[in-house]
C-alpha cells in the first residue's frame, strides 16, 4: 500500500506545486496576492475540455490550447487590473480585492455558459493502460504523463529563471523593481510576461488535475486556491523552490494522513502540519526575512 500511496502523493503534489508556482510568481514579481488564480486554473480545464470535445483536437494539443487561453487571461488581468492599479499606486489590498471580483465573475460566467454540472474528458482520449510497478503499486499512463509534464514545466521554469538573461532580470525585478528599472530592465514588459507565465502554469495545472481526477466543474478552483495559498506560505511567499517543495509537502501530508490516520482528518492533518511549520519558521521554508523588503 505504501508504494501506491507514494505514487498518489507524487502525482497530487506535482499538480499542487505547478499551481503554486504561478501563484508565487505573481506574488514575488508583482507583489500581488492573485485570488483569481483558482479561476484561471478552472478556465484551463474548460479550455482543454472544449478543445477535445468540440474541436476534436488530440490531448497534447488541447493542453497547449488551454495554456494559450489562460495565458491570454493572464495578459488581460495584467492589462486591466494590475497595471492600472499599479499606475495609480493603489494600496496593497486593492489588487487582491479586485482579483476576488474577477474570480467570482469568471466562475459565474462559466457556470452560466456550461452549466454547474460536472463534466469529464471523453474516456476515449485518455490513455488508459495500467503499468504495474514494484511493491503492488500501479500507475496509469495518464498519471505518468501528468507527473512528467508537471516536472518538465517546473524544470523549464527553474532553468529559465536561473540561466537566461530574462530570468536574471526577472529575479532582479522581484528583489527590487526600482533597482531593476535603473539597470535598464523594461519593468512593465516583465510584469506582463510574469502575469502571462503564471496564468499559463495555472492553466496547465487545471488541465492536469481535471485529467487526474476526471472532473471539470465551475467551482473546482476554490479548494485548489486554498491549498495553493497554504503551499506558497509554507514555502515562503514568492519563492520558487519553496512552492515546489511546499506542493509536494502538502501532497504527501494529505495522502499519508489518509493512509495512516484517517480520511476525515485529511485536511486537518495537512493544514495542522503546515501550521506547526509556520510556528517554527514564520517566514516559510525558503522565505526571506521580512525586513529585507522594507
Amino acid at each position, binding site marked *: 500500500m505504501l508504494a501506491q*500511496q507514494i505514487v498518489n502523493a507524487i502525482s*497530487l503534489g506535482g499538480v499542487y506545486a505547478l499551481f503554486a508556482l504561478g501563484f508565487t510568481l505573481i506574488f514575488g514579481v508583482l507583489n500581488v496576492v492573485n485570488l483569481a488564480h483558482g479561476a484561471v486554473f478552472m478556465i484551463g480545464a474548460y479550455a482543454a475540455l472544449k478543445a477535445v470535445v468540440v474541436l476534436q483536437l488530440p490531448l497534447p494539443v488541447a493542453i497547449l490550447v488551454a495554456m494559450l487561453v489562460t495565458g491570454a487571461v493572464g495578459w488581460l488581468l495584467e492589462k486591466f487590473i494590475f497595471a492600472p492599479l499599479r499606475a495609480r499606486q493603489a494600496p496593497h489590498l486593492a489588487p487582491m480585492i479586485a482579483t476576488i471580483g474577477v474570480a467570482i465573475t469568471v466562475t459565474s460566467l462559466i457556470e452560466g455558459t456550461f452549466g454547474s*454540472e460536472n463534466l*469529464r474528458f471523453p474516456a476515449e482520449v485518455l490513455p488508459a493502460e495500467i503499468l504495474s510497478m514494484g511493491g503492488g503499486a500501479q500507475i496509469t499512463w495518464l498519471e505518468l504523463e501528468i507527473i512528467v509534464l508537471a516536472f518538465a514545466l517546473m524544470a523549464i521554469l527553474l532553468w529559465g529563471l536561473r540561466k537566461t538573461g530574462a530570468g536574471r532580470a526577472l529575479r532582479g525585478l522581484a528583489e527590487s523593481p526600482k533597482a531593476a528599472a535603473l539597470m535598464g530592465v523594461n519593468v512593465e514588459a516583465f510584469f506582463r510576461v510574469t502575469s502571462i507565465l503564471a496564468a499559463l502554469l495555472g492553466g496547465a495545472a487545471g488541465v492536469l488535475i481535471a485529467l487526474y481526477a476526471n472532473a471539470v*466543474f465551475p*467551482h473546482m478552483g476554490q*479548494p485548489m486556491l486554498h491549498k495553493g495559498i497554504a503551499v506558497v506560505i509554507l514555502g515562503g511567499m514568492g519563492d520558487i523552490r519553496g512552492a515546489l517543495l511546499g506542493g509536494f509537502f502538502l501532497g504527501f501530508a494529505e495522502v499519508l494522513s*489518509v*493512509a495512516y490516520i484517517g*480520511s476525515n482528518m485529511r485536511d486537518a492533518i495537512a493544514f495542522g502540519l503546515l501550521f506547526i511549520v509556520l510556528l517554527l519558521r514564520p517566514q516559510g521554508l525558503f522565505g526571506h526575512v521580512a525586513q529585507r523588503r522594507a
Partner: protein
Amino acid sequence: MRLQKILSGAMLALGYFAGIAGAQIKIGAAEALTGNAAQYGAPIRRGFELAVGEINGGGGINGQKIEMVIEDEQGKKEEAINVFKKLIFQDKVLMLFGPTLSNSAQASDPVAQSAKLVVFGTSNTADGITSIGNYVFRNSVTEADILPVTLRMASQKTGLKKVAVLYGNDDIFTKSGYDNFKKALQDLKIPVTTTETFAKGDVDFKPQLTKIKAGNPDAIVLSALVAEGAPMMVQARQLGITLPFIGGNGMNSPRVFELAKDSSDNLWVGSPWSVENPAAENKKFISAYQKVHTTLPDQFAAQAYDAMYIVAQALKKIKLTGKLEADRKSLRDALPGVQWTGATGPFKFRQVAGRDGKPAGYDAVQTAIVMMTKSNQYVIQK
C-alpha cells in the same frame, strides 16, 4: 390578418370566461431550477408539467384545470423559505410541492406546516423530514427503506463477506445515507474493513481507495452523489480495484454512464423506479416523456410525475369551496387515503411519528427495485 385578430381575441375572451366558470386549482412548486441542484430540479419540473398536461388534457379534476406556479428556490435553504412564503401568502396556492433538497426541506417545511397547507416532497429522502408535522408528505422513498434491500440483494448475489465504507461527511444527504448503511450492515452482520470519508467538491480519492484496497474487502459501500461518486469509480478502476460498488439513491442516475463511461460496471443501486422497469404505467410515462423531451427521464422526473397524480386522486375526492383555509385542510385530510399505481409502481402513505412521539407526516410505502450496472446500463436484479 384581421380575421385572425378577431378570432384570437374571441378565443382569449372565451378562455377568460372559461377561467371564471371553472376556477382553476392553483398548485405551487418550489424547486431548484438554477445552481448546483438544478440537475435534480429540472427533471422534477418536467415530471410535474407532463402530469399536469395529461390531467388537464383529460378534462381536469371535476371540471377544474390545474394551474401550476413554479418558483426557483436555487437549492438554498434561505431561498426555499422565501419562495414558500411567496407561494403560500402571495399566490395563495392550495398546496405546495418541493423543495428539491432534504437540506432545504428541513428549513422550509415548517413554514408550510404552520401555515396549515400540504407540503409534498418528491425528492427528499433524508431522515426526519416528515416528522416535522402532519401537513408534510413525500412520495420519495427514504434511504432507510431502500438501502437494506439493496445491501441484502447485493450480498446474496455476490456472496460478499466484508465491505469497506466510503461516504461524504459534510452533507446531510450522504451522511444520512451512511447512517442507514451502517445500521443495515450491523443488522446483516457484515463486518466493515475500513470507513473512509471525503468532502463535497473533493476531486482526488486515490488515497482513500488505495487504503480500502489494502484492507481486501469484497465490496465498497458508497454514500455519495454522482458528482463525486462517478470520478471515484473511475479512479478505483485505475487503481485496479474491480470490486462491486453498492450505492444509495444518489448514484441512481443515468449520468453515471456519462461521467464514469467504461468504468461504471458493477454498481448496485436500489430505487422504486427504474428506466428498465417493464410495467405498463412506467412504459406509458417514459414514452410520454420522450415525446416532449429528447433525453430519458430519471427517478426525479418519475417521482414528480407520480406525485401530481397522487394529489389529483385526493382532489377528485373532495369538494373545493373556494375558501382557502377550508380547502387546504380538506385536501390534507383526503391525501393520506390515496393509493396509486404509477411509474414508480404501487404506492400508499404511511404515517410517521413526530419528534414529540405524536403522529406527524407521511412517508411512502413502495417496493425497491435493485439494479446492477453492466455495459453502461442498469440491469434489474431479481
